[in-house]
């Protein structure tokens, strides 16, 4: 019988076995992976900037930079909200476009009661849709993609039925109160004459939502919910509430974006916002918010949005036609996400 063997095993603490193993783990992770995991999408943004500078001397001009940002503010607004849905481990909200359109139309309808009423009404639409999505998905655990798709169908159908496929005009609806002009200007206000207000609003949303995600009680709990729904539930976290809130935030930002889009387009119509759902997912995911949930940040998402803007900008500057642009965009998307998730895996940060 081997008593001594026994004691020897006891003396050898597995903690001592561990160090060398962990060291060669860290050795194995190459610098590139680390770089990616730290810089994330801003790595790609940097590359695009360099290309941009090489393509056009005017690239770095304030005007161009503003136009890059200005061209993706609405997308940005949608994305920072949609990020919460993905972050919570629920992929995407396909009802975003209809939410945008609906809030816009309702806002225009409400213009007769003044600009404030209009905006509130628009936001209320987001609130209601968000609550419905949140409740059904958070509480009943319905599949997010399919449910939001169903929502999209229903809302779009209703809108087109109610307004019988017509589009409505803020200037007309708001003529009485004169709110129409204000509404149209919502998108067009500039701070200090240069910085578009939309950009400021986006910045505000981004900052606030960033802290909500990283620093608020809700955000921290959402992270765990996203990373492992069951573990979160069995940690005493109110998972259905968190998931619900995530969809609510998404719908709310979509509503805001919808109001701005309507203000920009000077018409409220059911077809507003088409394509913003996938566009948002794209931005969110290349921004480093993994579909597995619980990882990523609003800072990253903003990066993703910027990259999309920069790509369009640089490619147009290079004179690449629309068709080639779509191809490049798709390829870059897959590549960017592929590299990111791959380096995460290398660093052992991800099982996905």
């Amino acid at each position: 019988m081997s008593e001594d063997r026994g004691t020897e095993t006891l003396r050898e603490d597995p903690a001592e076995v561990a160090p060398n193993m962990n060291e060669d783990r860290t050795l194995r992770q190459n610098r590139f992976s680390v770089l990616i995991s730290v810089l994330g999408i801003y790595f790609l943004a940097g590359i695009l900037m360099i290309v941009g500078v090489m393509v056009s001397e005017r690239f770095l001009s304030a005007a161009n930079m503003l136009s890059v940002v200005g061209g993706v503010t609405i997308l940005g607004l949608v994305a920072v909200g949609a990020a919460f849905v993905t972050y919570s481990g629920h992929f995407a909200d396909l009802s975003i476009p209809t939410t945008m359109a609906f809030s816009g139309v309702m806002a225009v309808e409400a213009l007769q009661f003044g600009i404030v009423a209009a905006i509130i009404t628009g936001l209320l639409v987001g609130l209601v849709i968000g609550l419905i999505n949140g409740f059904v998905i958070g509480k009943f655990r319905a599949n997010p993609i399919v449910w939001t798709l169903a929502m999209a169908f229903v809302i779009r159908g209703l809108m087109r039925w109610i307004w019988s496929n017509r589009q409505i005009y803020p200037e007309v609806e708001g003529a009485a109160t004169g709110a129409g002009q204000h509404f149209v200007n919502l998108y067009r206000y500039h701070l200090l004459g240069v910085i578009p207000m939309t950009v400021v609003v986006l910045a505000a949303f981004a900052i606030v939502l960033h802290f909500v995600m990283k620093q608020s009680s809700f955000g921290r709990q959402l992270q765990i919910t996203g990373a492992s729904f069951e573990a979160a539930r069995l940690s005493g976290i109110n998972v259905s509430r968190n998931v619900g809130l995530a969809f609510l935030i998404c719908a709310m930002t979509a509503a805001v974006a919808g109001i701005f889009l309507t203000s920009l387009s000077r018409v409220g119509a059911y077809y507003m916002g088409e394509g913003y759902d996938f566009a948002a997912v794209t931005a969110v995911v290349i921004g480093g918010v993994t579909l597995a949930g619980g990882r990523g940040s609003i800072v990253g998402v903003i990066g993703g949005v910027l990259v999309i803007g920069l790509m369009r900008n640089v490619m147009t500057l290079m004179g690449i036609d629309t068709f080639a642009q779509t191809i490049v965009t798709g390829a870059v998307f897959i590549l960017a996400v592929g590299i990111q998730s791959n380096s995460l895996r290398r660093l052992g940060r991800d099982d996905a």
Partner: protein
Amino acid sequence: MSADSSVQNDIGLALEMTNITKAFPGTIAVQDVTFRAYAGEVHAVIGENGAGKSTLMKILAGAFDDYEGQISINGRAVQLHSPAVAREYGIGMVYQELSLAGPLSIAENVLVGRLPGRKGLFVDRSALIERARSNLARVGLEIDPRIAVEEISQHEAQLVEIAKVLGRNPCILVLDEPTSALSKEEIDRLFDTISRLRKNGLAIIYISHHLPEIFRIADRVTVLRDGRRIDTCQTSQTTTEQLVKMMVGKAVEELFRQRDHEPGGEALRIEGFTRFGFFHDIDLHVRSGEILGLYGLSGAGRTELARSIMGIDPLDRGSLYFEGRAVVPRSMRQMVDEGLAYLTEDRKLSGLALRLSVRDNVVASTIPSLCRNGWYNGSAARRITQSLIERLHIYPPKDSVTVANLSGGNQQKTLLAKWLAVKPKILILDEPTRGVDINAKVLIHRTIEQMAQQGTAVVLVSSDLPEVCSLADRCAVIRMGHVIGEVSGSEITEERLLMLANGEGIEKEAGE
């Protein structure tokens, strides 16, 4: 006794594994193990949780392609780098954690990889059903093979798993804790099958925590501890005491606690607790500073009970008193706020968010209290985590490490840390040391005791007999969803508990 004292003549040497080593990030699960099995023998492999039993056998089943050491089957050296290859060599293994495809029918799960064919390509439905039926019959499971696996209960699933492997007519059969979640009758039937197979000259490797089972069916037994083979001997020439000694090594002393304090007032009482079909009319109580053991064969319904107490699962009947005050468990959040904590039995699925850092996991249940008017206080979280890391010797001692990269033991410590962080009045632990290495185990035990010392009421759900016996002040035994006995103090012995758990000797029940 020499390394392999029990070697018989080398004829019929079915399996020889020499100097096998397998490491996982953070742990060395199996270290330099040599193992032999002969045709026509039942060879038991025992050891503490986390000793490396499953890993060793998974290597044999070809589940890992990065093991070190040589394996030879029937004298031929082989490389078992994939399950397919292993099956070629007639190795069949019943895995500890079931591996069945929920949405598919029982029949297809039983015959996966070897569906009966008509004209080569096509599956022969009737043959499929018939074969499945006959395979299931061998383990005595009478059930329509067309039912989807996700519809059936765990013990049925367990039997399906066994039927699946037996159906492949392996010449080396590995059973990794096949009896967990099985009822007594089912176990008996299984053992008959096993002895029949042995007569047919199979080499059967049998992993179990239930020593009586070992003595009942095993010819030889190999003891693993902390990834190493301690010894192999004839069951006939050994005793429970010897085996236990080999299994736990020196740690035995450490396990015996010094009872130096008196339990305080009643902390938790449940009366007539019933969830139809899971557990019926459970009456229990635990006093602060007391450790109440909940023993039962796995599948007895302890986890269900615990979940209902915590408000995770619904409750059909019964009342719960928290410090004398009636409380209706509605949600886990509510019970946690009340001061209850529940360490779940499955750390990987329901315990930890593996992709997050140690810190994020440790504070998971504490977030609200870490927030000043809604905003999260990161430095406080870091402080708390650090202190717990030190207290539990979590390695590596960095709160930013991703939990997935920790060893099983350290993962389990992290899980425990999460619940220590909430400073609970009542701590329910479900299999707190499952699959953790010996040092972690000792440390966890010490911590549990400390908690008790400081007046926490502890409910210890465990299938690990030594653990229950050494830690519990009182121990209730649950069988088939009923409390069938309660023993306390010196009466708490492994034999007593096992007998109760297996439904024997209930007549001389020890209540209070």
